[in-house]
């Protein structure tokens, strides 16, 4: 992607004003996306992202610059401009780049760029018809297909020189149910760090029908009541609760500055002993996985919480310097346009012992959140919110009726302690996570769990 000699020259130029570490990130990415509304392809676009990011550290300060122009002259100019932001004296540097070959743990069989568009469209049509024909209340179905092949080269003045390929594909199905002048929607978007063979491993029609079932259920549902009550959050994308309530607060991005509610709490009991939580970037072909992070550090399995005790944070290089610890392979970024920082990969609550049926049967009154929408958190206070896409009221240990329009709010530190049942049916759901280094693919996961009490924002008084 760039010759070794150019890389070396650029890295050396970057350290010309006293920086003590320099890194270059080259990205060449092929993207493809198709939009189908009402069974017809409305928009088709494909293209190539290409750019180079140069980063310099001087102790714990960082300068980042990026450009699309990869000529030697331009890169040296950009490196020099970035270096000028630091005003020190050039140190003694010897650069010895050693190329390390990655043995990919993510088997890619069918590169999406080699797949004819007609095959991708056939897949979308299958999803469309499965959802549209599910029920007559389904009035619209939108299918978005996308794939990407990201080739990166990362080198730094510690001698790192590595290339990696990330291939991802995802199909998002949005369904609309209409009745009596009202509309409700359902959504499902399976994806993986995999080639087009992903669609042989799953049946897209099952996901499409599920998205249609959600919209249909919600169009017949009543509004959710408000107030504090026990909440059962189902497995899979339900893991977004941990992602928001706790995950972001365990990223070194906020921990290093002491602005996270979880800063300085290693070894302390911060959650119910039923909770063990993990961020694992090494799960083969999982949506949030990568061989190496975007700083070239191999990803790893990081235990965040073990039986309620805080064990570790997710750390990138710069924040590792600030905290005096090593990177945990958590440095990620959307693209060369962003300096990397610590982010989640595949984050989940590990299996417990209860069955989902036991959890429901043991709940006298509460809300069962079968599918979650997205959410957000203020890491300084731990206050979070997230949306329930498909919910049900539980009465006397039984699912009573579907309810719509609920949002759950709470505080991360409090809610972790209130998890009082953990199921044995761990699953993952795919999402896009937005933060300082952009929007990145992140897997969330958990078994079915119960939280003793949380505030439900609904629209109806009981």
């Amino acid at each position, binding site marked *: 992607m760039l010759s070794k000699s150019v890389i070396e020259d650029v890295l050396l130029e970057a350290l010309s004003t006293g920086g003590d570490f320099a890194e270059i990130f080259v990205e060449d990415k092929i993207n493809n996306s198709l939009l189908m509304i009402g069974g017809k392809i409305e928009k088709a676009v494909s293209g190539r*992202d290409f750019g180079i990011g140069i980063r310099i550290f001087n102790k714990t300060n960082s300068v980042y610059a990026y450009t699309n122009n990869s000529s030697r002259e331009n890169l040296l100019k950009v490196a020099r401009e970035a270096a000028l932001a630091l005003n020190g004296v050039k140190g003694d540097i010897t650069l010895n780049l050693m190329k390390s070959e990655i043995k990919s743990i993510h088997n890619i069989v069918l590169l999406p760029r080699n797949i004819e568009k007609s095959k991708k469209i056939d897949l979308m049509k299958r999803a469309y018809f499965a959802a549209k024909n599910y029920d007559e209340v389904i009035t619209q179905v939108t299918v978005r297909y996308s794939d990407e092949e990201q080739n990166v080269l990362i080198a730094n003045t510690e001698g790192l020189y590595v290339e990696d390929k990330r291939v991802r594909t995802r199909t998002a199905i949005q369904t609309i149910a209409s009745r009596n002048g009202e509309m409700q929607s359902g959504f499902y978007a399976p994806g993986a760090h995999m080639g087009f063979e992903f669609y042989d491993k799953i049946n897209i029609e099952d996901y499409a029908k599920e998205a249609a079932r959600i919209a249909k259920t919600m169009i017949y549902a009543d509004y959710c009541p408000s107030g504090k009550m026990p909440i059962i959050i189902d497995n899979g994308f339900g893991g977004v609760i941990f992602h928001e309530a706790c995950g972001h607060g365990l990223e070194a991005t906020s921990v290093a500055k002491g602005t996270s509610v979880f800063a300085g709490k290693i070894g302390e009991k911060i959650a119910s002993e039923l909770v063990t939580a993990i961020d694992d970037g090494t799960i083969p072909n999982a949506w949030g996985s990568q061989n190496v992070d975007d700083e070239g550090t191999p990803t790893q399995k990081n235990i965040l919480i073990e039986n309620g005790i805080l064990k570790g944070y997710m750390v990138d290089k710069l924040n590792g310097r600030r905290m005096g610890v090593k990177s945990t392979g958590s440095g990620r970024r959307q693209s060369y346009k962003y300096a990397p920082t610590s982010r989640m990969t595949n984050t989940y609550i590990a299996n417990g012992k209860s069955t989902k049926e036991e959890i429901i049967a043991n709940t006298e009154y509460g809300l069962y959140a079968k599918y979650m929408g997205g959410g957000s958190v203020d890491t300084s206070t731990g206050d979070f*919110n997230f949306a329930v896409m498909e919910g049900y009221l539980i009465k006397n240990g039984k699912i009573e009726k579907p309810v719509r329009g609920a*949002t759950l709010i709470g505080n991360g530190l409090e809610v972790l302690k209130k998890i009082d049942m953990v199921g044995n049916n761990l699953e993952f759901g795919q999402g896009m996570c937005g933060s300082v280094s952009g929007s990145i693919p992140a897997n969330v996961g958990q078994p079915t769990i119960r939280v003793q009490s949380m505030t439900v924002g609904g629209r109806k008084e009981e």
Partner: protein
Amino acid sequence: MDKRVLINRIFEEGRKKGLKDMEVFIQESNDFKLRVFKGEVDELNISKEEGLSFRCIYDGKMGYSYTEKLDETSIDMLINEAVENASAVDSEDVEEIFAGSKSYTEVDSFNTKLENLNVKDGIEFAKSLEKEALELDKRVISVPHCIFNKQSMHTILVNTKGLNLEDKSNIAYSYVNVMVKENDDVKTSSKYIISNDFSKFDYKVLAKQVVDEAVSMLGAESVKSDAYPVILRNDVAADILGAFSPIFSAENVQKNLSLLKGKLNKKIASEIITIVDNPFMKGGIASCSFDNEGVATKYKKVVDRGVLTTYLHNIKTAKKDGVQSTGNGFKPSFKSPVSISPTNMYIENGDKSLDEMIRSVKRGILIIDVKGLHSGLNTVSGDFSLAASGYEIIDGRINRPVNQITIAGNFYDLLNNVLEIGNDLKFALPMNGFIGSPSLKIKELSVAGM
């Protein structure tokens, strides 16, 4: 490689492949962004970027492609991919490459003074801002985010039908977030300023706003779940209007994704509400003289005294509805196909001050912040349920801070339940257009708390 030369080469190659109607859109930007923490420049980002997107009509359909490598090596890929993408399209809607409007209103969104502002000036501003915030009140324990950003953009739109347009704009932005603490109670607040007039950037004002608001939230508690009269402060009302702005897109209406379908010339809001889309607004971040299809932009009332008067159109949706494009054919990014978005869209000012509105509430809540706009609201159903904070109002006075609540309702109901409109129009951070609103007094919303 010179941009104009590259464009001509692309058109030449396209013609060789039998293409007639082709268009190139180029976007270049120069940007710096910095973050100050504890008196030091914690992060500095400098960028120079360029992107080119190509589209063409092939077999009657529009195909798109793009590249960030602006040289000869990309030409074949651009043309081949666009042709292949056009072949994939099977929608019956007709798209076209546009020859140009009769005239364009000149819009000045480039401030030469701002162009001279350099990294050092930005650093000085951000350092002063952080220092001021830390010194204003001893309860301020940290300033987790103190950011300054400057961006200059240059776009070129050229097509084979003779259209040849250029636009230059620049903008500066500062965002500050503070943490305050009293005993074990931690609260945060954020404020921002966005403008291409740097003389409006007053760090003292920004620091005072953010610190005062964070401190005012100390001791906040939830309220009893109930239906309450609610005042949405201008910034909150603007955020909510912005999140629901896709309902005005003709694209969504035509695809049955907006409940405004069939509501043209009907009353959809309280008669005191007028919503304007004004691409010529002075100081408007989204001000421009042409949209991404090259259509001249125009001023219009989208909602006039409660009545929906138009949807927002691009060429394709206008053709389908038998009307003229409203000049709202914009792309979310240079890479995207043309879609629809507002320019500077806002609810027109009313005549009440926020204080007057507060005084008129016997028991209610003033909302000063909402969270979860990307997840807690549904543009299709109009339903929303958002984490919120603000102040409890009792007998026309602010009584105490409130947090850990949600406000829930339906946007279409809300539009009809606006009782009073403030005279304090404010714009939210630009997302999909630049959206503004004055403070709004709402008859009632469901509030969930204790």
